[in-house]
């Protein structure tokens, strides 16, 4: 229950940040896994990750440089538990979990240089859901008849176990740079 309380609390705080009180219902509570935003394709290239030229995340404003926070710039399309809260990091699965090769990508703007980057959201699998730092940002999400663009789908696929644990947010490259 504590985990759920924390999850609800985190989500509620986020609602408060992003909406007026009149809009109370806000964005709490859709349970889905992973995230999505344009352009989205299921890819298996998270190992690329050239971080060259990225602003130092320690210098980013507010919590946009904190991978344990839902406002972390790379989490713009995530829907799940950031692995940085679960014993991993924004690029590493927690110990004992299995990185899913099948994934999808989103585009997030880095607040340090205002450039758009392609982010790969890979799920880490094989243990019960981490349950920490629940983050739901479903901008660009589409229904499940467009699977590569839907975060309603469990993307722990092609792994030994299909049980979702958390999600990493890996920079693949600069958007539009090919």
């Amino acid at each position, binding site marked *: 229950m504590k985990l759920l309380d924390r999850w609800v609390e985190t989500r509620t705080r986020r609602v408060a940040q992003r909406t007026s009180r009149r809009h109370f219902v806000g964005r709490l*509570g*859709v349970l889905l896994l992973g995230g999505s935003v344009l352009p989205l394709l299921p890819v298996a290239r998270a190992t690329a990750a050239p971080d060259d030229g990225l602003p130092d995340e320690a210098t980013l404003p507010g919590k946009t440089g904190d991978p344990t926070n839902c406002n972390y710039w790379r989490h713009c399309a995530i829907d799940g538990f950031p692995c940085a809260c679960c014993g991993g990091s924004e690029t590493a699965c927690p110990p004992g979990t299995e990185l899913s090769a*099948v994934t999808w990508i989103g585009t997030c703007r880095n607040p340090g240089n205002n450039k758009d980057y392609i982010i790969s959201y890979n799920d880490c699998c094989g243990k*019960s859901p981490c349950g920490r730092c629940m983050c739901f940002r479903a901008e660009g999400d589409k229904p*499940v*008849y467009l*699977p590569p663009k839907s975060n*309603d*789908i469990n993307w722990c696929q092609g792994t030994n176990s299909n049980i979702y644990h958390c999600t990493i947010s890996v920079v693949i490259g600069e958007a539009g740079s090919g």
Partner: protein
Amino acid sequence: MLASEKRRGTPFFLRIATMRWLAVLVFLSFGTACFAQELPQRMTTAALPAEYEPHWVWVDDIAFGHMMDGRAYLVDADSEKFLGTLSTGGFFKKLELPTNTPEIYAAATFYTRVNRGERTDVVTVFDRQTLSPVDEIVIPPKRMTGAPTIAHSALTDDQRFMLVANLTPAQSVSVVDMQERKFVGEIATPGCTLVFPTGPRRFMSFCGDGSLLTVNLDAEGNDARQARSEPFFDPWQDPVSVKGVRVNDQWLFVSFDSQVHAVDIAGEEPRFLPTWSLLTDKDRRDSWRTGGIQMLAVHEKRGLLFTLMHRGGIETHKDPGNRVWVYDLATRERIRKIKLKGAATSIQVTQDDDPLLLAAFIGMPKLTVYDPDTGEHLRSISQLGSTITILQTN
């Protein structure tokens, strides 16, 4: 003096022995009295009647924090009584509730070591009175997992075949013969997903180009004929949510922009009826839209559509709402606005002549009950698992 002499005269071991016998006698007499009394109650396991009451509701719980432990709770929405639990298994989506047999079906996934090991997907058959599993049919370990909808599985209208949506990410449907208790086969539905029953031996799936795939089954449940409709919406302009609801011979779906798409399924091919909007110009200016996990409900006899509403941008199509708007499907007029007691991600309406409106929020393990005619909050039933997803009426 004499007494003390006497006591002194009795050997110590004899005195101890006497006391022990006395203790044993006291214990025996007391114990005998206890055991002689008949137990006032006989220990049993409760059972349910074969026919459920119309206000008994299944509350499905995906158990998000521990997904291999999905459950469904049966609750009396009148008396608030908790009636029982189905332990359905991993990646639980929803129940199938046939009316021709006192059974309940649920598709689920199991690993030999809970979270690891060999994966087995099954359709479990539960007894409606004992809520115990009585049979299971193994199906391919390909079930589509993720957020539940009412279309992750379905029964054909003749209730003979259960359909289970697969995604690996290749899309297909597993067909199970519930009468013969056997897996029939897997039907490839490339580019199309989920299962919406549209006839005795027919179902449809949503396709990525905005069309519907209709699949006709033969007598044995095999894929007899497939037909793809023309696209009836543009998924890139205004995606239609798959979180639809069936009312007699129609499936109703709502787009992200709250346009109602009614699909007539009376004939062999789906017929797309003219769209209409849930929103007035003012509603649109105020950013009202549908959202949630199970955001539509109907009362078939009364011809009423219930929609779960919130205010927000286009990307909030899955957000919870705290309003339910009621529409007369004959006139397409909004006849009522109901303010809920809190946020909800799922709504449902019982189908009897004295219906109840039910609502639940995935982040709060509670079922709230309303009068759908007045909007009055009648009661709340709490402590219902952890993460409520789909509400199902009997």
